């Protein structure tokens, strides 16, 4: 019997997220023709999963979550375990998001599996699944072997390409699993609010991040960073100096005590590049630094550097970007 491969996805606005689609693509390749089961928390009626089927999911199972339970990874584990056991699953792939990582830890503990998060490459090795993952804030990479009969692997969003749409028959079944484990009593969700990331995309999702630091000098002048981000459809980030000073909320902070981001392009404006900041953005593919101090450590990790007064450079850059993009 072919080893069962299960992808656990996340829904946003009724559709599998980009990261869930990437996970489906990886699973399809690893399965080499064998069926891949997709697992979602929601109901088939409210979800559009045809894209996921084209990404390589052969069957989608829905676990209907009681209110708020989908937000408590631990409460979902019994339901997930029943699917895994039915499919004789060996490997679970899921996105390495806040939710995915929580689910990975809990699931691996109960399923007696090896586990890894933030994974950027996976293949079958001699003694089990071999995964690569950045460590030390992207300053190094490790390869691990997940041995034993079962493994849970959380894949870093955007580390894998969005799957090419394939001519696949689509999910053969869409069905609800009746069994959902008892929801942990006690915790109640009191409310939610959107993460304050300004106008653009979420910091964790963005392909481009424009971040400002102490060099921006004041809360009032930080709009320069936001304008630059808007012109590039980028997310806004900030160094700790900015959030500590209260110029912008801590949800924008990139670095050791804030978020780790890995966009295609990271533009650091007026950020000197303390190691605490560097670890949060070093995984970015291309780094641009704009700073008045030629000896600022940010230039050591940047790919392109401009030494100059950001209050002159950024407006010029804005004008150039608007010109090039024709708006």
């Amino acid at each position, binding site marked *: 019997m072919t080893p069962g491969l299960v992808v656990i996805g996340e829904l946003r606005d009724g559709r599998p997220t980009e990261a869930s689609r990437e996970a489906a693509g990886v699973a399809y390749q690893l399965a080499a023709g064998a069926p891949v089961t997709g697992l979602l928390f929601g109901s088939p009626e409210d979800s559009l999963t045809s894209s996921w089927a084209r990404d390589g999911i052969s069957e989608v199972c829905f676990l209907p979550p009681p209110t708020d339970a989908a937000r408590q990874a631990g409460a979902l584990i019994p339901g997930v375990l029943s699917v895994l056991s039915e499919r004789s699953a060996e490997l679970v792939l899921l996105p390495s998001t*806040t939710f995915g990582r929580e689910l990975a830890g809990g699931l691996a503990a109960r399923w*007696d599996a090896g586990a890894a998060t933030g994974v950027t490459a996976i293949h079958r090795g001699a003694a089990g699944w071999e995964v690569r993952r950045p460590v030390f804030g992207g300053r190094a990479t*490790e390869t691990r072997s997940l041995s034993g009969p079962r493994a849970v692997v959380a894949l870093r969003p955007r580390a894998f390409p969005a799957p090419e749409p394939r001519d696949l028959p689509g999910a053969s079944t869409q069905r609800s699993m009746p069994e959902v484990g008892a929801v942990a009593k006690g915790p109640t969700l009191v409310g939610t609010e959107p993460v304050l990331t300004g106008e653009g995309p979420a910091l964790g999702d963005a392909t481009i991040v424009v971040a400002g630091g102490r060099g921006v000098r004041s809360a009032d002048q930080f709009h320069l960073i936001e304008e630059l981000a808007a012109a590039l459809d980028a997310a806004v980030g900030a160094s700790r100096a900015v959030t500590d000073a209260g110029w912008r909320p801590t949800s924008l902070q990139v670095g050791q005590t804030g978020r780790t981001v890995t966009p295609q392009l990271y533009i650091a404006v007026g950020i000197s590049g303390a190691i605490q900041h560097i670890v949060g953005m070093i995984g970015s593919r291309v780094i641009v630094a704009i700073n008045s101090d030629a000896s600022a450590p940010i230039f050591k990790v940047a790919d392109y550097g401009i030494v100059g007064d950001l209050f002159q450079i950024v407006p010029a850059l804005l*004008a150039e970007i608007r010109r090039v993009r024709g708006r």
Partner: protein
Amino acid sequence: MEIAVCVKPVPDPETRLRPGPDQRTLDVEGVKFVLAGYDESAVEQALLLRDQLPGSTVRALAYGPAPRTPEVLRSCLALGCDSVTHLEASAPVDDPMAVAAALAHVLASRPADLVLVGKQALDDEEGLVAPALGALLERPSFSSVTDLRWNPERSRFTFQRSTDTEIERWEAPVPLVIGLQQAWNDPRTAKLPNILKARRQPIDTVPAATIEAAVAGRNGRSLPLKFELPAPRAGARMIDYSTPAEAAERLVRLLREEAKVFP
């Protein structure tokens, strides 16, 4: 309230990274192991809550080999933890699920109302221990938590959890496992007299054999095979210019034509 805070000795954040002689893991020759990152916040948060809740105690636990593990537990004592427990190991513990299993074993025999863990370790950044502990101890667990506060009227904790798109506000009674993102304050620094006093305080130990027996039945393993450094960045290509407009034009051209990242 009994608060347990689980910490991990990690290489000093300023350590120069390089692969060890076997190429499998970090070279730890001469590396200083410290309490750092989210674990530091978890200890700070535990101490803040203790001060707010009279009669509470804070116990720090760590699993790993000597001398790094007892050293980090000593820093917990110096910061003000009431007691510390060293889960002994004969070698470094590289598998987060083994760490969770060992901690769960010890916490099961002496339960805490609140188990605090840094949301992920500064070195391996797995973030698996908090949710795994929740599953093993059969308690609700939340990671990426900020603003953890005790509400005495309702006898519940309130806290926020940041997902990628939302900030959720939760309320939960004990027992509870929390993977902490940030404490209310910057972590405190231990005072010199307390550091010296901590050197003479006792460290409870659980022998390696006991831990190994408790986690021996596990099948899933995670084993490091290779530790690599990225090819060194050459340092920034500095853009020469005579006017800001020229700098902007050159940068945009490089991003489009060379780096191919410009949308």
